[in-house]
């Protein structure tokens, strides 16, 4: 690891006219980390990335790269490489010329350019396509060409704005894995924008969850998954999404559909809460909340049940072996440590 590529955002605010696209964003990205910016559409991920790249200036706040304040530095002086969602390949140049372009601009000697281009192309497995124009490549090949153009310069920071969103599902999975390997082998810092929570969960070392121009939570995928900070994060992460049920907390139990469910929070006084339970945390058992099975979605190795718990709709993801028939009556329950409690007013975790 080269130790380069440390990023720090301090209180970044971005206004578009009167609209606050970013409301004071803070984060730290460590060298060689794979950092994902995750959030729903319009939450400010691209805006953050563009400010980091130097394509847009923040309204206020500081951007630091490797300890230097680059807030007002030119994009060209920041040593960042970026892969755009549209790839932005130069259509009139061959793949070779596309990959060579950043080196040419950096005034690299002609003799050194060809081997560097070959090397980058080999890393993303397009060395046999160097003579083609971008228009003669498939979507996946174009994506690789854009990757090669970004890695050829060995920038310390590698920015990717939804680079996989134009690929079909299968290719997306393959490329995802290769992207991670590539980042590991290059040892560069990667900042990765996506609205696909699964992509962020599988790729990122750590991630920042954006909601409406603010970061709701920063942490490893496991941390964010197991301890979501707020209702919004809880609802956004995980598929199918977490069940969120309004309920009353009384004596350390939550009362759902008239039935008590034990929690770990016996310390709290009685109050109204929103209960969060992941579909995978629900089990079918001999006791618990009575529920009617409305619908069974069989996924092969598991199944997702739509349950009716005395009027509340709940989804459960269960093992393939014990699928109850549709319209049957079952009991569901969850372990105390799998029950998340949120304040319905502040929407924060309690």
């Amino acid at each position: 690891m080269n130790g380069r590529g440390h990023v720090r955002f301090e209180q970044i605010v971005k206004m578009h006219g009167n609209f606050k696209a970013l409301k004071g964003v803070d984060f730290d990205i460590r060298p060689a980390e794979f950092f994902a910016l995750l959030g729903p559409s319009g939450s400010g991920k691209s805006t953050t990335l563009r400010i980091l790249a130097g394509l847009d200036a923040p309204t206020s706040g500081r951007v630091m790269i490797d300890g230097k304040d680059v807030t007002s530095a030119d994009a060209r002086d920041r040593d960042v490489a970026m892969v755009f969602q549209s790839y932005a390949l130069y259509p009139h140049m061959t793949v070779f010329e596309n990959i060579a372009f950043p080196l040419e601009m950096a005034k690299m000697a002609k003799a050194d350019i060809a081997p560097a281009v070959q090397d980058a192309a080999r890393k993303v497995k397009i060395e046999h396509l160097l003579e083609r124009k971008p228009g003669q490549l498939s979507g996946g090949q174009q994506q690789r060409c854009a990757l090669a153009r970004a890695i050829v310069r060995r920038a310390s920071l590698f920015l990717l704005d939804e680079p996989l969103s134009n690929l079909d599902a299968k290719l997306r999975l393959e490329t995802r894995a290769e992207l991670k390997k590539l980042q590991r082998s290059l040892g560069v810092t990667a900042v990765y924008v996506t609205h696909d929570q699964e992509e962020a969960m599988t790729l990122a070392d750590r991630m920042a969850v954006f909601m409406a121009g603010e970061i709701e939570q920063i942490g490893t995928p496991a941390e964010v998954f197991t301890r979501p900070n707020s209702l919004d994060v809880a609802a956004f992460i995980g598929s199918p999404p977490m069940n969120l049920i309004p309920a009353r907390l009384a004596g350390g139990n939550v009362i759902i559909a008239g039935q008590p469910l034990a929690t770990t929070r016996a310390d709290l006084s009685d109050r109204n809460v929103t209960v969060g339970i992941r579909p995978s945390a629900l089990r079918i058992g001999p006791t618990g909340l009575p529920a009617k099975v409305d619908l069974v979605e069989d996924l092969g190795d598991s199944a997702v049940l739509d349950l009716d718990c005395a009027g509340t709709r709940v989804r459960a993801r269960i093992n393939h072996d014990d699928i109850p028939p549709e319209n049957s009556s079952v009991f569901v329950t969850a372990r105390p440590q799998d029950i998340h409690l949120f304040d319905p007013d502040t929407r924060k975790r309690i």
Partner: protein
Amino acid sequence: MTAKRLRIAAVIAISLIFILAWMFPILWSFLNSLKTDKDVLAYPPKVLFTPTLEAYRDVLFGSASILPNLVSSFIISIGTTVITMLLAVPAAYALARLRFPGKRFAGFYVLATQMLPPVGIIIPYFLVLRGIGWIDTYQGIILIYLSFSLPFAIWLLVSYFEDIPFEMEEAAYLDGASRLRTLWRIIIPQVRGGISVTVVFVFLNAWNEFLFAVVLSGNTVRPVTVAMYNFISVEQTLWTKLAAVSVLAMLPVILLGIFAQKHIVKGLTVGAVKGGGRR
């Protein structure tokens, strides 16, 4: 099968009619330019005759040679084209990228200038040029031509520039290219087709222009379109010479057309598809 054949035959027949209608004046000029003065007046018109290059020799090397006029036409057309493109390319690029109040209106203004009947503005132009002593000069005619060709060229080019996604420029910028380099290496190569189309149109407009030239030129600077007119007089029309000059004047147009055919067809269709989506 027969229906399909019939349709193809019909298409070919209709195309032939159009081609003949289009070819007739060219053919007429070409044939007459090869006749003698006696043959050209024969009635009924002679289809079979002994061709001669007499007329060409006269108009090129005779006492009233039109060579200087051809040179004038070239200077005016090339001058207009070069200056137009030098100004129009950066201007169109800026227009395509900038958002400013009145942009829509600017587009309309350009179109409006193209719709004005030229006769309406020829007198004020004449007065202005006379005022600054530029009647019968290259700079005078080129200046007037620029007033038409520049807005037209900018308007034509803007849609090509607008077609290039902004991300492309940002990518080049992150790759370390300056703005000028981005324009030169990334943007302009992608609008080559549009530039070719514009060059052809501007050049041809200047080359074919007659009305302004006849008013604003004189004995020093007289383009071939005006000179051609001298072969028609009250006493007689020198048909063979007129035809020969016509052919000579048409030659660059046809050559340019053939040369730029690929670009023009592509450029026009691209422009047409895009035309609806102009922002």
